[in-house]
């Protein structure tokens, strides 16, 4: 059996919590791989005695799931109302410009995934972004741009898609 499928099977079989569902299994795969390959949809369907259709229905509903391998770095930009009032729009424009993307998505070289987020949970420090799961607040557009270009200079981040890598 190939390594990818083995990692998927181990992730879905070793969920620590008693209640195991289609969603919890998908989240376990995302924590392990940073994305949901089609093999994961098949394995989750088998494991939960569900169908591939039903698993896709859940996976496609929650925008936190991605279906392509993760980029080296992941940046999330909050556009919730507090961040909006505190200058999220010029900040987002500045970051998009710095990485050469017209909107959220992956850079063509696969180094950076940029996502909008509706609330990162630290509104008192707005505007807030998250760089490789580390929260940064009270940022000017320039400071946000610097943070993102700096992380791109730093090379690959080994923890960005490991099991422990979902901390903020």
């Amino acid at each position, binding site marked *: 059996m190939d390594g990818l499928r083995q990692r998927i099977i181990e992730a879905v079989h070793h969920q*620590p*919590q*008693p*209640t195991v*569902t*289609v*969603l*919890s*299994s*998908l*989240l376990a795969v*995302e924590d392990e791989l940073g994305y949901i390959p089609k093999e994961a949809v098949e394995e989750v369907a088998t494991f*939960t005695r569900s169908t591939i259709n039903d698993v896709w*229905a*859940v996976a*496609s*509903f*929650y*925008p*936190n*799931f991605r279906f392509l391998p993760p980029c080296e770095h992941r940046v999330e930009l*909050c*556009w*919730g*109302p*507090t*961040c*909006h*009032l*505190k200058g999220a*729009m*010029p900040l*987002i*424009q500045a970051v998009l410009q710095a990485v050469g993307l017209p*909107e*959220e998505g992956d850079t063509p070289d696969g180094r950076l995934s940029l996502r*909008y987020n*509706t*609330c*990162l*949970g*630290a*509104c*008192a*420090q*707005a505007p*807030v972004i998250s760089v490789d*799961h*580390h*929260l*940064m*607040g*009270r940022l000017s557009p320039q400071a946000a741009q610097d943070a993102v270009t700096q992380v791109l200079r730093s090379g690959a981040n080994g923890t960005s898609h490991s099991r422990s890598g*979902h*901390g*903020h």
Partner: protein
Amino acid sequence: MAINHPPTFPELQAEAQRRWQGLTGGGRPWIRVGAALCGKAAGADAVLEAIDAALKQHGVDAQVSKVGCLGLCYAEPLVDVQWPGGPRVFYGNVTPQMAGEIVATHAASGTPATHLALGALGGRDDDGLPDLNRLPMRAREVRIALRNAGNIDPGDIYHYIANGGYGALHKALTQMTPEQTLEEVNASGLRGRGGAAFPTASKWKFLAGSKAPVKYILCNCEEGDPGAFNDKAILESDPHTVVEGMVLAGYATGASNGYIFIRHGHEGPIRRAQDAVRQAQELGLAGTNILGSKYSFQLEVALTGDSYVAGEETALMDAIEGKRSMPRFRPPFPAQVGLFGKPTNINNVKTLAYVPEIVAKGGQWFAGIGHEKSTGTAILCLTGALQWTGMVEVPMGITLKDVVYEVAGGIPNGKKLKLLQTGGPLGGVLSADKVDLLLDFEVLRAAGAIMGSGGIIAADEDACVVDLTRALIAFCQYESCGKCFPCRMGMGHLLEVLERICRLEGSPEDLALMRSIGENMQAGSLCGHGQLGFNPVSSALKFFGPEFDAHIKDHCCPTGRCQEPRFSPRSSRR
């Protein structure tokens, strides 16, 4: 002291006291660093590294604890140092460099770095340190649910027990029947803090009335409301008050199982909740035969993907079952047919966090705080254009004016308050002249606003109401689950109209069009997302009609904000 398994409660208390004395009475300083989401976003990780490095450099032996949110988020990263018997001295907006200085002076020699200090607790009048509790943000506070937040290590159950934790559970299991426990909550007048403000005891009675062997208590920490972070902050700062509240809710209603429900990705609150559940089970405070009694309550943490609607009670049950989080038809109501088809009760984190203190001190005590039918306190998240942003717990009945101008220090940069956005994106806006309103469920509802989950976002005169309304509807559109088409399509349609008005291309008919869409959404949606989703528009039109007219009739945005770049991410669920 060796602990027998399972330990008795007096044994647990003695062990907790011994450990707490070691922190506060040993021969070395205790350094606490605010490391909740707000602290981390302000740079707490770098400060912690600097503290560790400085302790090594100066050869200082100190206990360092990561604590939760004290509420003074504007002053994060927040560090405090306490020598045994001395005052607890707080330092605000600490940089790594300042951290080194604080360690070199206060932690090394015992002399507070007075020139850097924000204030102190337990100080003397002549020590040159202001009393932290006299800070305007603290002076009006009555801390019940937040009693331990920022004070204890949330990862250590003994810190919670040393500060009275699980005493209420021990009292209920040894001295009170489930009926008496429920009656205390009834006497407290506690109402749900997630937004609906429904009397908690009435909800619990529905569940208690069912004789089914499997019944669920769900704790809702989905908290997608932008501008509100109090649920996550409580779970991250004092998870055991939520666990104890859930076990008490289970005992009062005869429930067998519980779930704490959090959005995947919020790693801090998730890890704290998981650790707390595990520790409580290990010490016999949750699980089978709790504290040696006949009562058992199995507890676990469940995660959802990104979905705002997952915070709706029936959608939440679908998410725990592993499905798309979409609301269900009612009836049947969750108290009859809920999670996995079993009777279910759902409470917000804040609601459950009050329960231990209500059981410990009595319902009458809680009912004596607050205003009329809004008993107890409000846990507010103060964000936006405010001098001091953060989280406070103030008695119900305080005016919005006191909250904005006293507790939060008013509007910075010499600007004027324009509006308050309360109760999350489905709440709506209140104009600045409404600040005399009391913080009270009925008063706010009568004024067309809601308290919701406690988020208060302030906007100053630079904000454009049309632009803010568009941003709120963009959020609601993005987060519609898509089940009910009046909500799914209505939100998208409203957003198109508002974008047109922002581009100064709106027409006078657009206002009537939006009202008609809003009526359809209200009439044709299963849950509050569609039913309340027109609130941002209707409240903005009510208080700021002339600003809409300026955009539509005069083709002019008075603040100029609408000339700036804007974007509205579209939901994939359309």
